[in-house]
């Protein structure tokens, strides 16, 4: 199982804040997970899109493992 969390404009674009599912066959990276949850249809997603794995900044080509929490969100604007 992996947990996918989406925030801000990404949450709004996808219509979900949290998804849980078994790692789909052929999914090895955060980018693979993103393609899976968006059905390869990324035209309405915020760009650029940032990635975190287990609450640490990561990249689309970062490898994922069973049990990971993978988050997608637009550039941050705190402070």
């Amino acid at each position, binding site marked *: 199982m992996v947990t996918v*969390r989406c*925030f*801000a*404009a990404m*949450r709004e674009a996808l219509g979900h804040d949290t998804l849980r599912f078994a790692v789909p066959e052929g999914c090895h990276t955060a980018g693979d997970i993103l393609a899976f949850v968006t059905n390869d249809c990324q035209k309405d997603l915020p760009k*650029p899109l*940032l*990635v*975190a794995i287990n*609450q*640490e*900044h*990561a*990249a689309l080509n970062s490898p994922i493992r069973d049990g990971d929490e993978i*988050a997608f*969100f*637009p*550039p*941050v*604007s*705190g*402070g």
Partner: protein
Amino acid sequence: MIVRLQTADFDPEQEAQALKVRGAGARVSFVGTVRDLSGNETVKALDIEHYPEMTQAEIERIAVAAQARHRLLDVLVIHRYGHIPCDQRIVLVTVWATHREDAFAGCQEIIDLLKTRAPFWKKELTPTGGHWVPGHSTEV
């Protein structure tokens, strides 16, 4: 070191006194507040969304690194989330050091990295609706 996320407002001086840091010659604080203008639009308030588990961890990583790099004696970070009206405080970064150069450099580094790395997203509430504030790209 204190890193705290909360919805409520805070008093920067009371929070700093609570740490009871002694022997520090210099203390530098940054307070960020909600500006009443964004371009030409009036901002009534912000709604701040965040990623709670990661926000806490990421700010702690930033604070620990700055503390070591700039010889800081202590660090205090408070960041609000949720609904924050115009002119209210959003964030406090206070650092203590023996020398003022370290205190200025450490405080500025923490707020700079917080703004580019901590997972907060601001939505400005204006007369025309809510608009996400364009963010800062995070280098990975």
